[in-house]
């Protein structure tokens, strides 16, 4: 079982595995792999806790109900699966600053934290606006040949590439 301890698998093996997981999800659960709805559901549950259940009345949550369902469990699973993989390969480490970030922006934690928060807000807002994320649109949706998914994923990457290039000074270095 040495391969379970490897730090990196070929991207083609990983990709084929994710493709097969998508097929299994359709076959066994009538679901497609997607992550961003679980964030909406959790956000609603947290807001309900603070406001005594008021959040559920919003139109959006009538359409997307804050339940613990298949996709919510999927997201919990991702956390566990990544933890197991990292533990097996010895790459698990508690750290705040990614290496590449440190090399370019130094080791001020507050700068990374605020950028991550703002990035996360736009990511969550944009994912719900577009109706899916890199899994839901980017893999499951494109595999179903949905026009919405192909358009969205192209825009994900246009936005991402431009932002990363601006941040890392590709244009004026």
């Amino acid at each position: 079982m040495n391969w379970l301890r490897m730090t990196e698998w070929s991207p083609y093996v990983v990709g084929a595995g994710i493709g097969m997981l998508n097929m299994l999800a359709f076959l066994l659960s009538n679901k497609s792999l997607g992550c961003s709805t679980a964030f909406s559901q959790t956000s609603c549950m947290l807001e309900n806790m603070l406001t005594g259940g008021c959040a559920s009345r919003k139109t959006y949550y009538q359409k997307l109900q804050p339940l613990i369902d298949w996709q919510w469990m999927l997201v919990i699973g991702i956390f566990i699966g990544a933890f197991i993989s990292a533990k097996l390969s010895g790459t698990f480490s508690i750290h705040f600053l990614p290496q590449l970030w440190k090399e370019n922006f130094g080791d001020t934690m507050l700068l990374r934290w605020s950028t991550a928060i703002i990035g996360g807000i736009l990511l969550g807002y944009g994912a719900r606006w577009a109706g899916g994320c890199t899994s839901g649109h980017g893999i499951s949706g494109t595999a179903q040949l949905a026009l919405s998914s192909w358009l969205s994923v192209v825009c994900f990457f246009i936005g991402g590439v431009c932002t990363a290039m601006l941040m890392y000074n590709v244009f004026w270095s």
Partner: protein
Amino acid sequence: MLTTLHQKKSLQLLMGLLTGIAFGFLLQKGNVTNYDVIIGQLLFRNMIVVKIMLTAVLVAMIGIHAMKAFGLATLNPKPGSVGKSIIGGLLFGVGFGLLGYCPGTVIGAAGQGSLDALLGGVIGILIGTGLFAAQYQQLNESILQKGDFGTKTLPDVFKVNEWVVIIHVALLIIGLLIGLEIAGL
């Protein structure tokens, strides 16, 4: 279709969890739970994310449509509009570049110990989805409906049989992947 299986509620929750564990395991083994790898892709210093996504789409596209042909799966393409898919996609993209993770990989990153993902990314996404829910009604009455095309698929757009599109997309993906390998990327 395995409808009886689909209706077993607790079993489905367990299946969701198991699917997620396998998904998270694969994402971590693919190294896409690392900020450096994702930003490296957006800066074209590596091609890992593109290789994983294209291979996954290739396998899932052929598999899902074959299962559909044998009556084993129902497809569920998401609806979209110009206002929804393009503007939403670009907003997501800017967030993707700033954070360096997406909603799936941010969870995987948290699982491997990256605190910027757990304390920054996850909290940010929860705020962002909450904000969207708060503004949904206004947005839905205006921009989200602009240029609505519903659940149209590529075969609908090109008015051809879905297998014609599948073969073309498959050849395009295989060609791209071979090209990347030849170029040594």
